[in-house]
C-alpha cells in the first residue's frame, strides 16, 4: 500500500500550502542528511520527506495526488539519490574540504604537524626541515624561558622554551629551515629538547618528585619548614609523628599540564638522624625504650 504523503510530512489533508511548506522547512533542518555527515540513518527518512514534498509542495501535483491520478511512488528525490556527503565521504569533493584550523594539532603531535600542517600539504619545492638538538636545564624546561642556539650559517636564534617542555619533545620553528625553491616556503627548524637531570627534582608526568630530609625532632614534634620547589621556596608543615617514606603533596607546585593548571610536588620524607648520637639522646632513648614497646615490624609476621 502506498504511503500517505501527508503523514510523511506530518500535516493534515486539509493543510494550507503554507503549512505544508512550513512542515517541510522544519523537517529539512532536522533530517537533511548533509547536516549529519556520518549518520546514515537520516538518509532514508529524508528521502521520503523530499519525495512527499515534491508532490504536496506543488499545487498541481498535490491536486492530482488527492484525486488518485498519481501515487506516492511516482517521484524519487533527489534524482540519482546521492547527497553531497556521499561524494565528500568518498573523497569526491576534495576541492571543498577545509583544512583550516588544524594548526593547533601540531602542538599535540609533531607527526600531525607534518601530516596536516602546511608542510604536509605543500610538497613542491618547499625547503627541507632542519633538525637541531638543544640541552636545557631542568628548571628552564619546567618554567619556560629563552635560550639561544647558533644556526649553521652562524646566525644566533632565540628559542622560546615553552613551560613544561618534556625531554625529547620537538619544538617547531616555522620557516627557519632551508629556504624553498622560488616562491615555495622555507622548511622548518625542528629542535629536539633534552632536559638535563636536576640534583633534587625528578619529573614524573606533571608532578615533581623530591626527597625531603627531616630531622628526628622535626619528625617527632612536627615542624614548619621551607622547602625548594621549581618555582622558589615555600613553607610546608611536617605533621607530628612523620615517618620515612611518607609522601607530602604540594598541590599545584608541579609542572604545567597540557589541559591547564599544574601538577603537584610530591615530597617523600626521609628521617635523618644526627651524624653523631650524643649521650643525651642515647640516655633518653634507653629510658624511652624501657617504658614503651613499639615494634614497627609488628605487621610483618
Amino acid at each position: 500500500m502506498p504511503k500517505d504523503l501527508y503523514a510523511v510530512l506530518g500535516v493534515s489533508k486539509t493543510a494550507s500550502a503554507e503549512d505544508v511548506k512550513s512542515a517541510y522547512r522544519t523537517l529539512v533542518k532536522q533530517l537533511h542528511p548533509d547536516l549529519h555527515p556520518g549518520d546514515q540513518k537520516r538518509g532514508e527518512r529524508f528521502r521520503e520527506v523530499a519525495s512527499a514534498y515534491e508532490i504536496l509542495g506543488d499545487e498541481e501535483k498535490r491536486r492530482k495526488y488527492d484525486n488518485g491520478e498519481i501515487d506516492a511512488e511516482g517521484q524519487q528525490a533527489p534524482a540519482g539519490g546521492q547527497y553531497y556527503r556521499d561524494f565528500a565521504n568518498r573523497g569526491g569533493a576534495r576541492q571543498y574540504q577545509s583544512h583550516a584550523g588544524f594548526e593547533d594539532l601540531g602542538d599535540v603531535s609533531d607527526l600531525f604537524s607534518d601530516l596536516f600542517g602546511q608542510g604536509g600539504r605543500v610538497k613542491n619545492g618547499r625547503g627541507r626541515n632542519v633538525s637541531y638538538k638543544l640541552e636545557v636545564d631542568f628548571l628552564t624546561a619546567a618554567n619556560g624561558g629563552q635560550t639561544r642556539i647558533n644556526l649553521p650559517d652562524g646566525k644566533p636564534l632565540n628559542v622560546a622554551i615553552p613551560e613544561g617542555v618534556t625531554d625529547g619533545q620537538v619544538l617547531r620553528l616555522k620557516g627557519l629551515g632551508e629556504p624553498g625553491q622560488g616562491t615555495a616556503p622555507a622548511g622548518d627548524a625542528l629542535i629536539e629538547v633534552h632536559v638535563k637531570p636536576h640534583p633534587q627534582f625528578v619529573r614524573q608526568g606533571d608532578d615533581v618528585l623530591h626527597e625531603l630530609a627531616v630531622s628526628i625532632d622535626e619528625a617527632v614534634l612536627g615542624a614548619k619548614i621551607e622547602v625548594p620547589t621549581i618555582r622558589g621556596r615555600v613553607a610546608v608543615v611536617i605533621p607530628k609523628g612523620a615517618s620515612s617514606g611518607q609522601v607530602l603533596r604540594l598541590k599545584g607546585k608541579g609542572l604545567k599540564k597540557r589541559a591547564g593548571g599544574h601538577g603537584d610536588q610530591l615530597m617523600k620524607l626521609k628521617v635523618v638522624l644526627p651524624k653523631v648520637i650524643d649521650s643525651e639522646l642515647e640516655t633518653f632513648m634507653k629510658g624511652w625504650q624501657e617504658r614503651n614497646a613499639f615494634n614497627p615490624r609488628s605487621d610483618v609476621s
Partner: protein
Amino acid sequence: MMIILREEELVARIPDLLPGRLHRWIRLGWVRPERVEGLPVYREADVARVRLLRDLENGAEFDEDTVVLILSLLDQVHGLRHELRSLAAAVDGQPAEIRERIRLAYHRIADAD
C-alpha cells in the same frame, strides 16, 4: 561513470534552480566548478553540492549568513573526516603488533580525558 554537466544541463536537472541563483553561489565561492576551455563544468560532487544549497536556501529557508556558517563547518567536518579516514587507513595497514600498540596508546590518552 563520471558525469560532467554544462551549466544549462545542471540548471535543467535541478528543479527550481535559476541561473541567477547559481551565479550568486559561484560568486560567493560556495560552488567552485572547474573550467574547461573557459566554461564552467559540473561534476557529480558539484551537482550534489548545488542540490544541498538549494535545500538549505529554498527548503530550510536559511539566510545567507547561516548558509555561510553551515558550509564552513561542513567543509571543516569533511576535511577532518578525510584526515581521520586516511589516518585510520594508515594505521590499518600496519602489522598487528603496531596496531595493538596504537590501540593501547589511544585508549590510554582518550580515556584519560
